[in-house]
C-alpha cells in the first residue's frame, strides 16, 4: 500500500519536475479566475441571457481567460515551447487589466505574469548547471524535512520554483487564490532531496523574488503618497502592501462624456408624446372633455407598443392640468394584436400622496410572477403628457368614478357638468390600470424600486 502510494507519488513528482509545472499551474489558475468573474452567474444556471448581456465586454475576459488556461496546459504538455507560452501568458495577463475587470481585480493579472515568467525561465536541469550540488541522497536529511526557513537545505528540484514563484508573490498581495498551490508544494511530500545548495542561490532567489514587489511599490507607492499628501483621499490604512491603493492624480486627463441635455434623443420627440400627433378629430388641448360626440376614437402614437404585464399605479392624489380625453385608442401590444385603452392628454400630471407602481410579470404556468414595486412620494410628469390606461378610477371630491374605454365619455360628461371650465382637475384615491405614459420630463422624489 505504501509502496503503491509512494510509486504514484514518485511518478507524479517526476512528471512535475520534467516540466514547468508551477508556471503552468499559475497560468491555468489565472485563466480560471478571469473567466469566473464574468461567467460565474452564467455557469450557475446556464442563463443564456447573461451571455448576451455580457457581450463584447465579457467576451474579452472569457477569451483571455481561456487563452491563459490553454497556455498553462500547453506549458505542461509541450514544455519544449515553454518560452512562447510563457511570454504569451505574461502578455495576456497584462492585457487582462484593461480588458477584463481590472485583471480579475489584480489577482488574475498577477498570477498570469508570475506564472508566465516562471514558465519562461524554467529550464531542464543539466548536470553542468548544478555546480553546487553535493552528494545526492545524503541520509541525514531524510527525516523531518528541511528546517523552516532553511532555504539552503532545499534540493535543486524544490528550489526550482515550488518555493520561489510562490514565496515570491506570497506575502499577501496576491490574494486567496494563491494559497492553494503554495501549500500544495511542501505538503505534497517533497522528500528532502538531501542536496546542499549554497547560500548564494538562496540570496539571489530572495532578491529576484523581492524585485517585482519593490518595483510595484515604487511605481505605485510614490504617487500614492503624493496623492495622499495632496488630498485626504483614502486612508492608507486600507491599502494592501501599497499595491492596491491607487493614486488619485489630477483629474484633467479623463475623457468624460458630458451628458447631453437634449430631449432630442428621447423617444418622445419622435412620436407619441408630441401633442400634435394625436387624434385628428379632436383638438389636442382644451376643455372638450368628450362633449362633442358620444363615441370617440383616438389614434395611438405610431411607434408605441404597450406592455401587457399587470401593472397598476396608485396615488393619493393626481393633479392634471389641461386634461383632455382623446377617446378610446387601439394600442399595439408586444405579442401582436391591440388592446383598447383610453387616451388622455395633459400639459402636466402630478401624482402625490405616496405613489406606488406595481408591475407583476414573469409568472409561468399559472405561478405568480415577480412583483416590482416602485414607490415615491411624488411623480411629476410635465410637457405634453399622454396617458393611456385600460381603467382609471378616482374621486373628485365626494364623487368617485371608474373610467373604462366603454364608459369614459358618459362618465366624463357627467363629471364635466360639475366642473365645467376648470383647467385643472384634482382627483384623489387614483388607481390606473395598465398605464402607458409618455412625457417630456418626469421629476421623481425619493425613488425606490424593489421586489415586493
Amino acid at each position: 500500500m505504501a509502496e503503491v502510494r509512494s510509486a504514484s507519488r514518485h511518478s507524479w513528482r517526476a512528471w512535475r519536475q520534467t516540466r514547468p509545472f508551477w508556471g503552468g499551474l499559475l497560468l491555468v489558475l489565472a485563466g480560471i479566475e478571469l473567466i469566473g468573474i464574468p461567467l460565474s452567474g452564467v455557469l450557475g444556471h446556464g442563463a443564456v441571457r447573461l451571455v448576451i448581456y455580457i457581450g463584447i465586454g465579457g467576451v474579452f475576459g472569457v477569451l483571455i481567460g481561456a487563452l491563459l488556461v490553454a497556455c498553462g496546459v500547453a506549458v505542461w504538455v509541450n514544455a519544449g515551447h515553454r518560452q512562447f507560452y510563457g511570454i504569451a501568458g505574461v502578455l495576456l495577463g497584462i492585457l487582462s487589466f484593461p480588458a477584463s475587470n481590472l485583471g480579475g481585480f489584480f489577482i488574475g493579472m498577477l498570477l498570469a505574469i508570475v506564472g508566465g515568467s516562471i514558465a519562461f525561465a524554467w529550464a531542464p536541469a543539466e548536470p553542468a548547471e548544478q555546480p553546487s550540488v553535493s552528494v545526492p541522497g545524503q541520509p541525514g536529511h531524510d527525516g523531518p524535512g528541511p528546517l523552516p526557513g532553511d532555504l539552503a537545505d532545499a534540493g535543486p528540484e524544490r528550489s526550482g520554483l515550488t518555493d520561489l514563484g510562490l514565496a515570491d508573490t506570497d506575502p499577501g498581495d496576491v490574494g486567496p487564490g494563491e494559497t492553494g498551490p503554495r501549500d500544495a508544494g511542501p505538503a505534497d511530500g517533497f522528500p528532502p532531496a538531501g542536496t546542499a545548495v549554497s547560500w548564494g542561490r538562496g540570496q539571489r532567489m530572495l532578491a529576484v523574488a523581492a524585485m517585482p514587489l519593490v518595483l510595484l511599490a515604487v511605481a505605485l507607492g510614490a504617487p500614492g503618497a503624493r496623492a495622499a499628501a495632496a488630498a485626504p483621499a483614502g486612508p492608507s490604512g486600507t491599502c494592501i502592501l501599497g499595491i492596491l491603493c491607487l493614486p488619485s492624480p489630477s483629474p484633467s486627463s479623463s475623457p468624460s462624456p458630458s451628458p447631453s441635455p437634449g430631449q432630442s434623443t428621447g423617444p418622445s420627440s419622435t412620436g407619441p408624446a408630441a401633442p400634435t400627433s394625436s387624434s385628428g378629430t379632436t383638438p389636442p388641448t382644451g376643455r372638450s372633455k368628450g362633449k362633442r360626440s358620444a363615441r370617440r376614437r383616438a389614434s395611438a402614437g405610431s411607434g408605441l407598443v404597450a406592455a401587457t404585464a399587470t401593472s397598476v399605479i396608485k396615488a393619493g392624489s393626481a393633479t392634471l392640468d389641461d386634461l383632455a380625453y382623446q377617446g378610446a385608442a387601439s394600442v399595439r401590444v408586444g405579442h401582436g394584436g391591440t388592446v383598447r385603452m383610453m387616451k388622455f392628454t395633459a400639459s402636466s400630471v402630478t401624482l402625490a400622496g405616496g405613489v406606488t407602481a406595481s408591475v407583476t410579470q414573469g409568472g409561468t404556468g399559472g405561478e405568480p410572477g415577480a412583483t416590482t414595486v416602485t414607490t415615491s412620494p411624488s411623480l411629476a410628469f410635465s410637457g405634453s403628457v399622454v396617458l393611456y390606461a385600460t381603467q382609471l378610477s378616482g374621486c373628485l371630491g365626494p364623487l368617485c368614478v371608474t373610467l373604462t374605454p366603454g364608459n369614459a365619455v358618459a362618465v366624463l360628461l357627467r363629471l364635466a357638468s360639475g366642473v365645467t371650465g376648470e383647467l385643472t382637475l384634482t382627483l384623489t384615491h387614483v388607481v390606473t390600470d395598465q398605464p402607458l405614459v409618455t412625457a417630456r420630463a418626469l421629476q421623481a422624489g425619493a425613488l425606490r424600486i424593489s421586489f415586493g
Partner: protein
Amino acid sequence: MSAARHRTLGPPAGGRVRWKLLAAVMLPAVAIAAILIGLTAQGAIAANVSVSGQQFLVTATQLNGTGFEQFGSDVSAGSSGTQPVIVSGIGSATLDDLCQAVKAGPLTMRLTAGSSGTPVSASNLIVDASSLAGSSATFHGITIGQDASTLTATPGTAGSAGGFGEQAGTITIDNLVQHTWLTTAGTFTLPGLHLSFGGSCP
C-alpha cells in the same frame, strides 16, 4: 520511502528556474502593468468591467445618463434559483463618487472611483439590480409602460415581449444605491481608482 530511494527510482534530472531569465521577463511585465494601472487610475485608459453571479452593492452620489431603459427580468442566483431583477441599460453614463463593494470569499473588496471631481464614465452600462433607490430622479423624454421588447435606448438590450418597460432620453439620479447581480459595461474610465479590502460603501 527515503529520499535516496526516490532518487534512484526517478529520472536523473528535474528542472530549475533561471533567475535572470525570470527577472528579464517579469520586471518589464510588472513595469508595464504598473503603467497601465497608473493610466487607468488617472482615467486615461478605459477598463472593461463585467461582474456577475453574486449580489453586490453599488452607490454613487449622482448618476447622469443618456439613453436609458429599464425593464424587469430575472437572473440565476446560484443555488437559490432565479432572482428577479430590474435591468437598467444606459448608453452613456457618468457616476460621481462611485463605490462598488463585492464580497470575495470572506473578504469584502471595495472599489471606489470618480471622487476627485472627475466622474466615472461608462458606455453601454447594464446593471441587473434587485433593488434600486435614489433621493430624487429626473427623466427627460420618458415613456413608461412600453413593451419591454420594443425598448431601443440601449442597442442590443431589450426584455421579453409583454414585459413592462420604460425608457428615457436622459436620466439623473441623486444618491443612487443599488443591490446588483450583474454589472457590465463596454468601457469604464475610472479616474481616482482605489481598491481596498474591508469596509463597505456609504
